[in-house]
C-alpha cells in the first residue's frame, strides 16, 4: 500500500518499518521538518546528544551491543562534519549505521549557503555508501536501500543527505519489501571446493591455530556458537584480535588470549610458529602482523572473509574463502565431523606442550604494589567484581584499552565495544550511552583514560537527561599513557605535551553532571569503591588514580616480528629493541 506523506514523515516511517527504536541526533535548521515529524509520533525515541560525534559513537555502541542498525540524525554543515569521525570509526570497525543528514534546499546546493557543506563529497571515503536525495520519488527506496547496505555483507555506515525542500515535499511512501539491488549482492555461502581443501589442510595440520576477529561478532551469535563448536571439535588453540574478543570464551583452556602488538606471548608465538593459520573474519591488520616479511613464515593460511578486498591485501593466503563467517563455519563444522575420525592427535599434543611452555612465561604478569594502584590490578578487580553480572564494557583508546583487552575476560560476543581500526579517543563514553539504551537493565562500564574521556565528556549530560546509569571507570595516570609509553621507548623519555596538566576534579565534574563521583587512590580501598560504583543506580565517574609510570606489556615494537616481543620484565631494554627504522612507524 502506498501512502502519501511528506519527506520528513517518510524518514520516520522508514525508521519504524526498519525496526528502529532509537535515533541519536542533534537538531538544526536543515533537519527541522524531520524533528517536527518526530514530535508528532511516539514510535521512535530520539536521544539528544551534545555533539554529533557523540551521536554516531552512541549509535555504534547501540549497534555493536545489540546487532541492530544504529540510527543517527544530524543537521547540514557542521552537523555533518562533526559526524565524520564517528562515520570513519564505524567504517573501519564495520559497524552498521544509517546517518541521516539535513542539507540546504536543492536550489541552494553549490551556492555556499549558510551551513552548507558537500556532505556526500566529504563522507564518500568514510562511508560504505552515501546518497544525496534530489527527488521525493527516490526517498523511500533510498532509505530502505540504506538500511540494506548498512547491515548486509561487511556492515558499515551509510549517509542519506536530504535537502530541506525534499523533507517538505509530498510523495508516495511504500514499505520495504524483498528486493535485489542492481549491483550490490554480497556473497554469503563459501565455495565448497575451497572449504573442502581447508578441511583437508586442517586434518593434516601439526601446529594449527585459529585467528579470529570482529567478523565473527558481525556475523551474529550463530557464528560465535559455530566457532565454539569447531574449536572444541578440533581441539585447536584459538586467539583473537581486539575486535573479536568475546566470540570465544576467555575462560576456556583452548583460549590463548589476544594477539598482536599487545597480545600475549603464547598467542603471538603460536602465530609465528604455527603450520596452519585459520583466519576467521579478521583482516591481517598491521597491529596484528608486526613485521610482514617475518609474519608466520612457515604456515599455510586459510582466510574466511565476506569482503574480497580483505583477502590477500597484506598477507598472501593459500586458501581464500569468500563468504559470511556463520555460513562458512557451518560447512566446515559439518565436513570436519565427517572426517575427524582419521585425524592423528599426536602432533597436536606436542603443539599444546609447546604452548604450555610459552604460557608458563606468564607474559601478563606485573609487579603489584601496596602503595599505588596498578592499572592492571584495577581491571582485574573490576572484572572479578562484575563477572557474574550482565555487564557490557566500552573503552576509550590507549593503554587502558589494551589493559582492558588483556585483563577483562569476555565470555560472550557483543559485550565489548572498542574503537579498534580508527583508534578514536572519546569513543567509549558516548558508546556506553548507546549500549545502556539498548540494554536498560545491564551494567555498562566505560573503561577510560582521563585524557580520552575529556574528548567527549559532554555526553555525561546526555546520560543525565535519560537517567542512564553508565559507569565511567577512569584509569587516571595524569598522562596520555600510550603516548608517554612510546615517548619513553622511542624518544628518550622526552615527554613532549603528553602530561595532562590541569585535569578537572572528576568527582566535582560528576556532580556537575548530576552523577556520582568516586575517587580511589589506594589499592586497599579499591574493592569497596568498585562495589559502591556498581550499587549506585546513577551515572558514576570513578576516578581511579593509578601508577603514572606503568607501561603496557607485552609489546611487539614497531618493525619487529612476533617472536621479538618485549615483556614487562624483559632483560633487553626497550631502547635496544627498537631500531632506527622502527621509530618512524606508528
Amino acid at each position, binding site marked *: 500500500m502506498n501512502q502519501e506523506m511528506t519527506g520528513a514523515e517518510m524518514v520516520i516511517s522508514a525508521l519504524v518499518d526498519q525496526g528502529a527504536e532509537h535515533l541519536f541526533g542533534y537538531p538544526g535548521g536543515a533537519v527541522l521538518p524531520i524533528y517536527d515529524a518526530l514530535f508528532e509520533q511516539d514510535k521512535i525515541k530520539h536521544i539528544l546528544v551534545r555533539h554529533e560525534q557523540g551521536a554516531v559513537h552512541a549509535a555504534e555502541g547501540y549497534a555493536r551491543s545489540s546487532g541492530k542498525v544504529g540510527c543517527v540524525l544530524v543537521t547540514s554543515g557542521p552537523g555533518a562534519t562533526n559526524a565524520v569521525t564517528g562515520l570513519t570509526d564505524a567504517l573501519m570497525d564495520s559497524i552498521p549505521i544509517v546517518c541521516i543528514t539535513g542539507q540546504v534546499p536543492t536550489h541552494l546546493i553549490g551556492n555556499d549557503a549558510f551551513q552548507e557543506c558537500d556532505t556526500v563529497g566529504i563522507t*564518500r571515503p568514510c562511508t560504505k555508501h552515501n546518497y544525496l536525495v534530489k527527488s521525493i520519488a527516490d526517498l523511500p527506496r533510498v532509505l530502505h536501500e540504506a538500511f540494506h547496505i548498512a547491515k548486509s555483507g561487511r556492515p558499515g555506515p551509510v549517509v542519506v543527505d536530504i535537502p530541506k525542500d525534499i523533507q517538505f515535499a509530498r510523495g508516495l511512501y511504500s514499505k520495504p519489501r524483498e528486493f535485489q539491488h542492481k549491483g550490490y549482492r554480497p556473497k554469503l555461502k563459501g565455495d565448497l571446493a575451497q572449504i573442502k581443501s581447508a578441511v583437508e589442510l586442517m586434518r593434516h595440520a601439526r601446529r594449527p591455530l585459529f585467528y579470529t576477529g570482529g567478523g565473527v561478532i558481525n556475523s551474529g551469535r550463530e557464528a560465535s556458537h559455530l566457532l565454539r563448536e569447531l574449536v572444541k571439535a578440533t581441539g585447536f588453540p584459538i586467539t583473537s584480535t581486539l575486535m573479536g574478543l568475546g566470540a570465544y570464551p576467555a575462560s576456556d583452556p583452548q583460549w590463548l588470549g589476544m594477539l598482536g602488538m599487545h597480545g600475549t606471548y603464547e598467542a603471538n608465538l603460536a602465530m609465528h610458529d604455527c603450520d596452519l593459520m585459520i583466519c576467521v573474519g579478521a583482516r591481517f591488520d598491521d597491529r596484528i602482523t*608486526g613485521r610482514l616479511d617475518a609474519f608466520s613464515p612457515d604456515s599455510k593460511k586459510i582466510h574466511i572473509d565476506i*569482503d574480497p*578486498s580483505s583477502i590477500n*591485501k597484506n598477507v598472501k593466503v593459500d586458501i581464500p574463502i569468500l563468504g559470511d563467517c556463520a555460513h562458512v563455519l557451518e560447512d566446515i563444522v559439518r565436513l570436519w565431523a565427517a572426517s575427524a575420525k582419521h585425524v592423528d592427535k599426536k602432533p597436536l599434543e606436542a603443539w599444546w606442550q609447546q604452548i604450555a611452555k610459552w604460557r608458563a612465561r606468564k607474559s601478563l604478569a606485573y609487579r603489584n604494589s601496596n602503595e599505588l594502584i596498578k592499572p592492571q590490578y584495577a581491571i582485574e578487580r573490576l572484572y572479578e567484581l562484575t563477572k557474574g553480572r550482565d555487564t557490557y564494557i566500552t573503552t576509550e583508546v590507549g593503554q587502558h584499552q589494551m589493559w582492558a583487552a588483556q585483563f577483562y575476560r569476555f565470555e560472550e560476543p557483543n559485550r565489548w565495544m572498542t574503537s579498534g581500526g580508527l583508534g578514536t579517543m572519546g569513543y567509549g563514553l558516548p558508546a556506553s550511552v548507546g549500549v545502556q539504551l539498548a540494554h536498560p537493565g545491564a551494567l555498562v562500564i566505560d573503561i577510560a583514560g582521563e585524557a580520552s574521556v575529556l574528548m567527549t565528556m559532554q555526553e555525561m549530560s546526555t546520560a543525565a537527561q535519560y537517567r542512564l546509569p553508565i559507569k565511567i571507570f577512569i584509569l587516571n595516570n595524569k598522562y596520555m599513557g600510550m603516548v608517554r609509553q612510546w615517548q619513553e621507548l622511542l624518544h628518550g623519555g622526552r615527554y613532549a605535551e603528553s602530561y595532562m596538566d590541569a585535569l578537572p576534579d572528576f568527582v566535582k565534574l560528576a556532580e556537575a553532571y548530576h552523577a556520582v563521583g568516586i575517587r580511589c587512590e589506594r589499592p586497599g580501598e579499591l574493592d569497596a569503591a568498585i562495589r559502591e560504583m556498581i550499587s549506585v543506580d546513577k551515572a558514576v565517574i570513578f576516578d581511579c588514580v593509578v601508577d603514572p609510570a606503568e607501561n603496557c606489556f607485552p609489546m611487539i615494537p614497531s618493525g619487529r616480528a612476533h617472536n621479538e616481543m618485549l615483556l614487562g620484565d624483559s632483560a633487553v631494554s626497550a631502547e635496544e629493541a627498537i631500531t632506527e627504522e*622502527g621509530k618512524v612507524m606508528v
Partner: protein
Amino acid sequence: MTATSHYPAATIAQQIETHTLSVLVDNEPGVLARVIGLFSGRGYNIDSLTVSETEHEKHLSRITIVTRGTPMVIEQIKNQLERLVPVHRVIDMTVAGPHLERELAMVKVRGKGEHRMEALRLADAFRARVIDASTESFVFEITGASEKIESFVALMLPLGLVEVSRTGIVAIARGPEGM
C-alpha cells in the same frame, strides 16, 4: 638484522605491471568521484581513464582504467572497485584474454609550405583524417593503439604541432562474448 616496515609495499618486491580494467557501473551522480577517490585515497595510479554511458536504458556506464602496480596491488584495486555499491563488474582485460585497445586523438598542426605537405603525407601514412583545415593549419583525427598515436604526435612536433586532445584508452575483448 634490518628492520623493515609494518606496511606491505616495502617488504615484498614485486614487478610493477600495467593493466587495463573495464568497470561497469550504474550511471548515477558521484559514481566517477567514487572510483577516482578510491584511486587517490589508496594511492593507486591512473595512467588513463575514459568513461561514458554505454547502455542507456539500464543507465550503465563503462569506465576503462589503465593502472600500474604489483600483481597484489592490481588484485586489490579490482577487489576495492568491486566493493563500491554502484559497481557491477570489474574485468582485468590484461589477464582476461585477447583484447583490443584503442585511443582517439585530435592533433592540431600549424605550418606552411613543405612542412604542411609533409604533415599531410605522414597523416596519410598513419591513416589520420583531416577534419578541419585552414590555409595555415590542419586538425587530424587519428585512432589506434597508444604507441601509434605517440609516434604520430612525435612526428608532428617538428612540423608545427600546436596541441593534442586525446580520449584515453578504451578496451574490448576479442571474440563473441560480452563483458
